[in-house]
Every structure is written in structure tokens, then in C-alpha cells.
């Protein structure tokens, strides 16, 4: 379902060219829960941005859902992000001045869903993560764990093909982190495809497969025994 062939990415940082990815290839099937690991500077964030359609690869082919999207324009990428990808960020990235409910509605706004249906879907998504009682709260009025649950609801509301999580527990204490991982585990059981970037082995162990990156190359691609 997701095929990456010899992806490279070269950045220009001031005068210096940085080879963030130097030819990465792998394949992810529907329903897989994959963790991407690696030290900082290994290129895992860059890879994440490319899989998340936030950035173009410099070279290589990226096929998602049978469609080559390594060369499509920005507008099309925005559409793919909207319809096929649900993001969960380390920084949560909710809009601070609006309610939780509105935050979850945002992807639906850009998908052109009408306000009545939008509200229903957003409420449903928030109920699934146990936040029905927080609809009218703003992000600064609820706990970090709740914020991340809201972010997961937002990622799921458009029924995406892939859930992309970037260090989802990085800004949470261990108890809240564990709770979030339990949600990811449940989503995996329900058949969602999840790709998660992390540098914590504890967190990566929730996945079925770990791709280790080092200096822009895949160091190891292992299938692991799911501990849960």
C-alpha cells in the first residue's frame, strides 16, 4: 500500500548541502504498525515529512495507495494530506485559541464537509478517545494526555489511510504516554495502518516492525514480537 523506492533528500542549509536521506526503500502493508527509529540527524524526521506529504523527495519514487506521488504539485499534496493522512505530533499542534471540537473539525472543513455533518463526525471521534466532556474546552484548559487524545481524534476524523505519529509520547509523562500507546494499539487492532517515528525503544515495542535509520540509510528493518 505504501511503497518507497530509493528515496533521497538533499537540503540546502545555508551554503552546505545536507544529505538527509541517501536512498531509502521499503514497503508497508495495510494494517501494519511500523516504528521508525534512529538517533537525531538520522533522517527519520525527513522521512516522516515525505511520507506525510509535507515535503517532496529529491529523487526516488513514492507510491501511496497505488498512486505515484513523488512528483505531484503542492495542491494535490494538500489534498492527499487531508484525505489519506492523519497526523499526531509531539508538540500536539492544536490551534490554541479555539475549542477542542473546532480543532477536530478542521480537517473536515478543508475536505468540504458541511457544518452539521462535521460537528457530528468530530463529536463521534472525540467520543472514541473519551473526550465527550471536553468539547467546548480550549487546549490550555485540559491536560497534555487529553490534548494528545484530541489530536488523535483529529487524525482519525477524516478516516485516513495512514496514521503518522511523530514522537507521540515525547511531551508526555510515562502514565499518559502509556495511555496514548494503548490507544494506538487499539487502533492497530481495528486495522489502521500506523507509522510512528520515535527514539524510545519502549514506545517502538508497541509496533510490529521497526525500521532503524542511520545517516540517511536503513540500518536494520526488523519484525518484532508484539509484546501486547
Amino acid at each position: 500500500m505504501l511503497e518507497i523506492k530509493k528515496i533521497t533528500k538533499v537540503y540546502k542549509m545555508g551554503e552546505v548541502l545536507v544529505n538527509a536521506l541517501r536512498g531509502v526503500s521499503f514497503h508497508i502493508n495495510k494494517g501494519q504498525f511500523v516504528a521508525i527509529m534512529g538517533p537525531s540527524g538520522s533522517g527519520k524526521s525527513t522521512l516522516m515529512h515525505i511520507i506525510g506529504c509535507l515535503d517532496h523527495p529529491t529523487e526516488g519514487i513514492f507510491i501511496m495507495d497505488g498512486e505515484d506521488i513523488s512528483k505531484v504539485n503542492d495542491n494535490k499534496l494538500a489534498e492527499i494530506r487531508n484525505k489519506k493522512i492523519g497526523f499526531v505530533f509531539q508538540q500536539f499542534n492544536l490551534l490554541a485559541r479555539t475549542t477542542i471540537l473546532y480543532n477536530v473539525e478542521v480537517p473536515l472543513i478543508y475536505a468540504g464537509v458541511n457544518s452539521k455533518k462535521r460537528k457530528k463526525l468530530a463529536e463521534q471521534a472525540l467520543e472514541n478517545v473519551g473526550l465527550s466532556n471536553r468539547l467546548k474546552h480550549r487546549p490550555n484548559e485540559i491536560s497534555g494526555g487529553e490534548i494528545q487524545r484530541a489530536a488523535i481524534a483529529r487524525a482519525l476524523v477524516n478516516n485516513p489511510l495512514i496514521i503518522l505519529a511523530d514522537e507521540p509520547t515525547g511531551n508526555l509523562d510515562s502514565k499518559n504516554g502509556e495511555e496514548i500507546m494503548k490507544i494506538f494499539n487499539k487502533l492497530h487492532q481495528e486495522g489502521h495502518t500506523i507509522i510512528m517515528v520515535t527514539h524510545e525503544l519502549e514506545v517502538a515495542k508497541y509496533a510490529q516492525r521497526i525500521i532503524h535509520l542511520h545517516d540517511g540509510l536503513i540500518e536494520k528493518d526488523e519484525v518484532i514480537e508484539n509484546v501486547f
Partner: protein
Amino acid sequence: MFFETLKIAVNSLKSNKLRTLLSMLGIIIGVGAVIAIVSIGSGAREQITSNISNLGSNLINIFPGTSRGWGGRISASSENVFTLKLADDIKKLCPSVKKVVPVAQGSGLLIAGDVNVQANIVGTNADYQEVNNYNLYQGQFINSDDLESNLNVIVLGSQLAKDLFNSENPLGKKIKLNYKDKNYLFTVIGVMEEKGGGLTGDLDDRSYIPITTYMKKLSNSRYVSSYLAQANSSQEASSALGEIEYFLIKNLDDQDKEKFRLLSMDQILDTVNSVTASLSLMLGGIAAISLLVGGIGIMNIMLVSVTERTREIGIRKALGAKRKNIMSQFLIEALSLSGLGGIIGIILGWLGAYFIAQLGKWSLVISLSSVLLAFGFAVAIGLFFGLYPAMKAAKMDPVEALSYE
């Protein structure tokens, strides 16, 4: 989608009310100034115009020429060419002219009891009152008997009557007129109604005596100061003007038109109109500059807002916002700023114009075109100055925007 974007924009403006208000201020002042200035200009013009047409738009003043055409005031020592007979001749030979009233003017001291007042003494005939559309408050105006017999009778302007006699009835009272160091005794036969300011000073401070009395007893001259000609109708005013000019050139053998000067109410009206129009234009220009400055203020605040909300832009882009979504969000925000500023400006300008109209005692005139123009200009400025910040927001790279701290 538009409605959603509008909601996002309005919410963002609402969340920072003071800043919103401050950034709208330039637009508010600009639009308010345009509305108020245009309204005040047309209100004042309307008042002046109606004053002039009150005086009669079919009137033509005929003055002796000053030695060099226009400019400067009419000097008393101008060439002596205007006789009573010439007035009759103009009337006889110019078919569009209904009446020609000779006027001799000077200044004298009026004394009643222990009150004395410096006043404008106007020697004229019985037609003066009718030609000027000027009514009596009490008594009567100069009649033909007074003129034939050179009687010492005087009609007072309303303010003059008040100054001299306070609340007493002045009719039949004797007053002294001191003119060029000689005293004359006059009988008050009438008081004019209140008229207010005219084009050549306050009409209520004048007094009127028979022109024959003026010429034979006061000035000892065969010549008068000016004529006041009345055309048959307003429509014939310009042909009357031409006839009089032709007649005077021939009659006075004055090809260069040096001995006389014609001034019609139409000309005065034109002058007033062009003066107020250019004044309005100038003030309108200043207001337009204020609008421009307001637009720059909006651009400034929008640029700050875009930078401040870089992360929000990144989030929205990650969640599927296209360039046009971000673009329209910020553009609509700028338009809401300028549009709202425009509306507040219209209200304030309206209020300002209303108060000044009250002070100036003229009617409030708000033209729809000035409202639409000012509002349209404000919105156009919002669009123009909002475009660059909105484009800047739309072009942001989502990865960079997301990692912005």
C-alpha cells in the same frame, strides 16, 4: 467554504480586539473624513447657493470699472459714468431687462437720541425692494412721491432699527444723519425684515433713502455708484447680460470694457461652486492619504499576524489546507478589518457631518456616492494591502511552518 473562512477570520480578529481596533483606526479616520468632508462641502454649498438664489438668480450688478479690470475693491473714486438717465436707457434698449435700479452708496453716522451708529447709506428708488425680493417688517419703502420731492425719509435695516431704537417703535421718529461732516434730519418711514448676511456685508445694517435725496442733498453728484438690473426671468439672465454689455460698450464708447463691470448672480454661483468643489477635492485628497496610511497600517498588522501565526498556518496546511485556503483566510481577515473600519468610519463621519451641519445651520446632505466611494476605496485598500501578507502566508513551507517556535 467562504462562510467558514469568514468565521475563522472574524474569530481571529475577535481574539485580539484592541489590536484590531488600532489597526482599523487609519481606515476609520479616512472613511469618516471623506464622508464628513463631502457632506460638509455639499451642505455648505447648498446653503450658499440657496442664499444666492434668494437674492434672485436673475439679477445683474453693474459696477463702474476700476481702472484695471478685475481685482481689488470697487473704489469710490471710480470714473463717473453712471447717471440716472443711463439706467433708463439700459432698460429701454435691452429687451431682456425688466428693471434697472440705480444705487448710490456711502457711509454715514446715524444718530437717534444719545445712540449713534455708523451705517451704510443706500440711495435707491422704489423698485429696489421688489428687485431684491426684500420685504418690510413695518412701515413702507421709498415711493415715487419721496423720490420726486427729494424727501428726507429713511428705511432702516432690522439690526440698525434695533441698535438705534431698542424696543421702541421707530416709525415716524426723527433721526440725524451725519454725512461728510454735515447733519441732515430724516424721518423713519419703515423697517426692513431680518435678512442676515448678504454677499456684500450684513444687509440688516443698512439704511435706505431716496436716491434723489442722496444725489441732490448728500453727495451733490450726477452720478450713482452702481446699477442693479433685473432680467425678465432667470432664463433670460444671460441674454440680458449680453445686451447690457453690448449697450454699454456702444453707449460709453468703451471697447476695452474699462468703464464698467458686470457681475451676475450666475457668475457668483459659478465661482462659489468652483471654490467649494476645489476645496472639497483638496480635503478629499487629504482624506484619501489617510486611507492610504490606514491601508499600510493594515498591511503592517497583517504581516505581524502572519508571522505570529506561522505555526497555525503549518498546522492548517498539515491538515489539508491548500494555498488558496490560507490565502483567502488572511485576505478575508484584511478585508474584514478594512470593511469593518469602513463601516465604523461611515457612522462616525455621518455623526461628524451631522454635528457640523447643526453648527453651520444647514441641512445634512450625505450623498450615497460618497458613502459608496469611501467604503469601496477602504475595501480596495484592504484587498491591495492584504494581498502581500496573504500571499506570504499561503507560500509558507509546511515543514518550516510546523517547526516555527
